[in-house]
């Protein structure tokens, strides 16, 4: 990476709840996205991945509070922007599509109206000036997202569309502003399995054609392994590991990533029961003082429970672990020594 990343996030923290009892939905997120890259943001429900994206978009509302060491897009500091500048960024620099496409379209207006709306705001000078030009572009966009009979679709209302088609419309609306980054928050979760693959392929293709970066948020590792260049793994509001695909899947650095991979059906073919991660994600009031994964981690020792590890670069990626895993999948450094020492004491 020679030039500055497109998205630079460091020390992101998003709090909810009262000032007296804050609940950190996101507490320690560091990662970067380069222009044109596909980054997969993976984690369980409640890991804070959606909130991270919303924070980037400026969509975290009161009573949420966003703090960060650095939150930059295209080199510009988002934190220093006023509301108007942030709003100008949404839809034009960064676009976002959401999990339930049918619910994300306003049921009272046609597809054409909603596309037109986006273009009136974010289109180029020609598009902003002329309705005819906007309509032509709308048709082109719908064709690009592989919607058959686009002219008829422009007149349709959202409830007349299927889930897959609605998601394509959302994608069309998102790229109408020619964004540099497209955030897709669980874009395929609400769709049929057959449609899922199509939508992912579409996203990958559009990314390539428009030289966009893509932040793919999902809980599904399979989705990410097919599409992404790099992966960021989150747990309980923190980034646990970042790494390149396919290395992160072959030699994960963090025990959490390892456990996630272990739980995949593909890796359990020789067993009677699926491997699981015991325990539950810490809630608002029982966040461990040490490593957040410690209560559930198979390798946890005293130091893990006492001290929260920082996110450190390891090899080509980074990991938030006192004892990151070696290529054989076992904890490195002095783990054995420490463990032995603990049991001897």
């Amino acid at each position, binding site marked *: 990476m020679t030039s500055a990343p497109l998205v630079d996030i460091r020390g992101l923290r998003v709090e909810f709840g009262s000032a007296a009892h804050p609940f950190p939905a996101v507490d320690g997120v560091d990662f970067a996205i380069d222009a044109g890259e596909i980054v997969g943001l993976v984690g369980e429900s409640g890991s804070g991945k959606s909130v991270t994206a919303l924070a980037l*978009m400026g*969509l975290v509302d009161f009573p949420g509070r966003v703090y960060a060491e650095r939150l930059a897009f295209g080199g510009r500091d988002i934190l220093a922007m006023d509301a108007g500048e942030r*709003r*100008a*960024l*949404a*839809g*034009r620099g960064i*676009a*976002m599509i*959401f999990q*339930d496409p049918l*619910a*994300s*379209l*306003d*049921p*009272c*207006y046609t597809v054409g109206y909603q596309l037109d*709306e*986006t273009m009136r*705001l*974010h289109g180029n000078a020609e598009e902003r000036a002329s309705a005819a030009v906007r309509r032509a572009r709308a048709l082109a966009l719908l064709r690009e997202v592989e919607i058959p009979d686009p002219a008829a679709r422009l007149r349709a*209302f959202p*409830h*007349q569309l299927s889930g897959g088609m609605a998601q394509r419309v*959302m994608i069309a*609306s998102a790229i109408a*502003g020619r964004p540099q980054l497209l955030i897709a928050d669980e874009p395929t979760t609400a769709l049929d399995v057959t449609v899922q693959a199509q939508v992912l392929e579409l996203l990958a293709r559009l990314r390539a054609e428009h030289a966009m970066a893509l932040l793919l948020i999902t809980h599904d590792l399979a989705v990410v392994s097919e599409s992404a260049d790099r992966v960021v793994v989150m747990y309980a509001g923190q980034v646990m590991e970042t790494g390149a695909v396919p290395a992160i899947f072959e030699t994960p650095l963090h025990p959490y990533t390892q456990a996630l991979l272990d739980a995949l059906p593909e890796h359990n073919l020789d067993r009677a029961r699926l491997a699981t991660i015991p325990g539950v994600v810490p809630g608002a009031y029982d966040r461990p003082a040490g490593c957040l994964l410690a209560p559930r981690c198979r390798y946890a020792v005293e130091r893990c429970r006492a001290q929260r590890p920082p996110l450190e670069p390891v090899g080509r990626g980074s990991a938030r672990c006192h004892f990151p895993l070696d290529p054989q999948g076992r904890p490195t450094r002095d783990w054995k020594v420490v463990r032995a020492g603990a049991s001897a004491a």
Partner: protein
Amino acid sequence: MLGFVLRRVALIVPTFIGVTLLAFALIHLIPGDPVENISGERGMDPERRARLLHEFGLDRPLAVQYASYVAQVLRGDLGTSLTTHESVAHEFATLFPATVELAFFALVFALVVGLPAGMLAALRRNTVADYAVMGVSLTGYSMPIFWWALLLILFFSVQLGWTPVSGRIAVQYDVPALTGFMLIDTLRAGDLGAFRSALAHLVLPTIALGTIPLAVIARMTRSAMLEVLREDYVRAARAKGLPRWRVVVVHAFRNALIPVLTIIGLQVGLLLSGAILTETIFSWPGVGNWLIHGVQSRDYPVVQGGILLIATIVITVNLIVDMLYGVVNPRIRHA
């Protein structure tokens, strides 16, 4: 769309039949002798009574009487008032515009104040503005209309002398009744003094009548907006970078209007109930006042005709609102 309209119309036919049944049954349910009730004469000699019985058709079987009543109604004949000896239908037609004018302005008042108030309360949730709007709204629909009207008169007419106490227009103005709507008629007659007087007379009754619908509309708008603002499409609209006013008005409010419209439809019935009371207090010459005098003076043709006509109007208005609902909510159109 046509199918939707036809279906809605078909649904109200049984209700309308039921209303005619109710109006018809009224005369027969009232204690006492139906002949006396209809003719208004008491203590007739048996010969006259028998003749009137036959004249009114009361000696025929009930089903036949009902059929002939419906036939009469459809011809536009609703009987004759016992007190004024005028045709009931004619009296209603003469007095109805006054009630409509009052109800119309009351509704406009309720919407113009209530919709923005509800929106404001939703956007400024749990702040002073929200509590103020909700507090006023709660008080508004907990008040008896007639008392509120009396208080308004006490304050604005008696203490401050700003507005007149009663009537539709100052006594000295004699305006030819073209449409029956005082504001229009005074303008057409070119009499600005009369127009101003009519306007002044409208103020207090409008506020009195409109207060309860205002309270209900404000409340409903607030809760509808709060629900809509949580929806995914509002979040998506913001993610598109749309300016705040557009998100709130074009997207949120437009969707919140759907449940609010149903409430507005319901307000029509409330307005007519309230009109009865408001007209009594302000001596407003509308059908509410007319109906009450009819009940108080046992003028049964008036009561019967009044109930039938008002019920019909309410049903028709609800039908129109129902169809408007189809326009406003695209999902219904295709159902």
